[in-house]
């Protein structure tokens, strides 16, 4: 009797274990993955389906311009809920016509991440997507677009260009675009749009970066209609029709040759000038390099995989790669304790070109691609360092790389090379940075006394973006306007 009971017990336990194992395996099995969100449901209206497949990654599912890729894009994607559009043929402040939207979608907005959807969206799908985008803003139901009259163009001529130059001075275009159109001697450099995003005035010598394309008519329309939501106003009261056309002709004449049209001598001259400029202005060059390579990994993400702008360059993305260890992207801001504030230039350079950490230990050649940064010219590496010095401090403590002990590493290598096992790599944020917004930006690692807070706030930078409150029991931070 007793023996039977034991058998029964083991049998049940075994069956239960097998059952559980089955479900556990099922949950882990790759075939059980949820379907790709890119694939739209059949029942969805066409416009919504296209929007979710093609637009939502940048413009966000709710049209607020807060998609997954949005925080790192410069210029930022459009917020459709405001009904404000830059590229229009309508009066300042008015909503755009359907044709304006169609043009922006078909040709894209040069100088931004908005591509030319022309080859993929046309006919009914283009109409459907425009209707869906318009549905985000109530303005399209209430208002009618007020189209401007562009019936009297002034053809380009030497006198028209010369007149345009005078208009350029009269309207003080140089304060944002510089006297040369490149913005070199511009006085207004800290431009922001209505959403508080940093924007740059167009470089008028590079017509292929003009968002609304670059014919005289397009450029005239930008003066005539203004660019809603940006500091670029409509000049309709301060200049006559003719003056604006002359100005458009002048801006067209400022264009320089793009590199794809240059011959060898011109390219050589162009690039040596660009290098000299970069050497003279390393912070700007460094900003360009950091924005086009470092930000993606060295930023704090929210749990749904979106960069939290407050933690840009503050590190905190974990790469868990078996059997090599766990690596967290470092805080690149100039915070003294958790960032690069106390590192010397030589230490930063050694870390990013030779993979040697501050304590002298070595980094693996991945996930931090120092082997690639080692291929950069010296000037560029110095420019990156110069820029990182100017990044305002953000406190975010990240752990140093966790490396396995030699025996588990050996076993992992054995599994990889002999048993041919493949393990998943995990990339995830250290914590949900979007929830850190106001109470943990100052002290992500918990308790921290006021003395320490004062230390961090008295950084070498004259205007730190983030300072700690005096109350030692709350780690709140407030933003200081420079």
């Amino acid at each position, binding site marked *: 009797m007793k023996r039977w009971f034991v058998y029964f017990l083991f049998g049940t336990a075994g069956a239960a274990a097998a059952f559980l194992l089955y479900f556990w395996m099922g949950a882990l099995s790759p075939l059980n993955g949820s379907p790709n969100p890119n694939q739209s449901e059949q029942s969805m209206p066409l416009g919504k389906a296209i929007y979710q497949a093609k637009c939502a990654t940048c413009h966000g599912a709710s049209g607020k311009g807060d998609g997954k890729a949005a925080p790192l894009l410069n210029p930022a994607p459009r917020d459709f809920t405001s009904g404000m559009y830059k590229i229009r043929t309508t009066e300042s402040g008015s909503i755009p016509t359907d044709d304006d939207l169609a043009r922006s979608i078909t040709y894209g907005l040069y100088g931004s991440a908005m591509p030319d959807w022309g080859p993929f969206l046309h006919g009914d799908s283009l109409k459907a997507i425009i209707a869906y985008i318009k549905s985000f803003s109530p303005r399209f139901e209430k208002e009618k677009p007020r189209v401007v009259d562009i019936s009297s163009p002034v053809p380009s001529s030497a006198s028209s260009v010369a007149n345009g130059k005078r208009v350029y001075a009269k309207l003080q275009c140089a304060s944002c675009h510089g006297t040369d159109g490149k913005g070199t001697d511009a006085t207004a450099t800290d431009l922001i749009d209505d959403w508080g995003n940093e924007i740059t005035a167009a470089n008028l010598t590079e017509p292929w970066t003009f968002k609304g394309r670059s014919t005289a008519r397009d450029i005239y329309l930008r003066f005539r209609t203004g660019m809603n939501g940006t500091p670029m106003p409509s000049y309709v009261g301060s200049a006559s029709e003719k003056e604006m056309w002359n100005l458009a002709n002048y801006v067209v004449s400022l264009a320089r040759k793009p*590199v794809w049209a240059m011959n060898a001598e011109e390219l050589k001259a162009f690039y040596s000038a660009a290098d000299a400029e970069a050497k003279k202005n390393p912070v700007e060059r460094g900003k360009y390099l950091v924005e086009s390579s470092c930000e993606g990994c060295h930023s704090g993400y929210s749990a749904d995989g979106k960069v939290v702008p407050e933690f840009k360059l503050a590190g905190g993305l974990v790469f868990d790669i078996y059997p090599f260890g766990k690596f967290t992207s470092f805080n690149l801001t100039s915070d003294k304790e958790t960032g690069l504030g106390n590192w010397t230039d030589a230490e930063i350079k050694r870390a990013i070109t030779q993979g040697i950490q501050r304590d002298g230990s070595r980094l693996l050649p991945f996930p931090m691609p120092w082997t690639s940064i080692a291929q950069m010219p010296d000037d560029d590496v110095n420019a990156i360092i110069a820029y990182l010095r100017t990044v305002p401090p953000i406190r975010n403590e990240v752990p140093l790389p966790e490396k396995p002990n030699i025996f588990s590493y050996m076993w992992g290598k054995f599994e990889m090379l002999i048993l041919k096992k493949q393990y998943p790599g995990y*990339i995830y944020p250290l914590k949900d940075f979007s929830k850190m917004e106001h109470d943990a930006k100052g002290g992500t690692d918990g308790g921290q006394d006021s003395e320490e807070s004062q230390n961090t706030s008295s950084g070498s930078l004259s205007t730190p973006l983030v300072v700690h409150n005096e109350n030692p029991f709350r780690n709140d931070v407030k933003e200081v306007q420079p």
Partner: protein
Amino acid sequence: MKKILKWTAIVAGCLVVVGFLAFLYFIPPLTMIPQTAFTEPLAQALDAPLKSIKDPAEKILAERGKMIVGRSACNDCHTPQGSQGPNYDEFLAGGGMKDGFKLYGSVVSRNLTPDKETGMGTRTDAEIMRVLRSGVFHDGRLMEPVYMPWFDFSNMTDEDRYAVVVYLRHLKPVWHKIPDYSPHSDFEKLSETAGDYAEHQSVH
């Protein structure tokens, strides 16, 4: 009997030590390899396509492109992996990174060489620049930002992106077929990213 046990222990101990030393010799931990062993082969592989360029203007552009391809770490994902690190004979021929995502499907890094059948040979300049600028493939499909950091490359200037295209056109063409994108995660290896991980955590 005791003697046999003793000798077995000694032999086993020796084997462990020898095995450990052999491991260190054949597959040393990556931090024991000098840095130049990583950077120099990469520098050579990056330089190789420049040598055969005749046209002086293209050469200058390709040199710029080389600088950008080098610093952007394209090689880290787009060069196939041999048993001892990247296989530079097939520089940028794709397949170095295979990932299955629960949310985003399976991706394999593409073949960037100008091979007509499996690489970028038939892509136009505009198509390649569109992928770098906006993450939109030649067929209109949008790239999830977790695959390739196009949102970083989007902040480059068009002229720099053009230089990258000129450089890629001069790579050695390698026939290396890469499986098409699949919306399901059909690899054994199932990576997780922030979005996936959030789901993963809410399940457990």
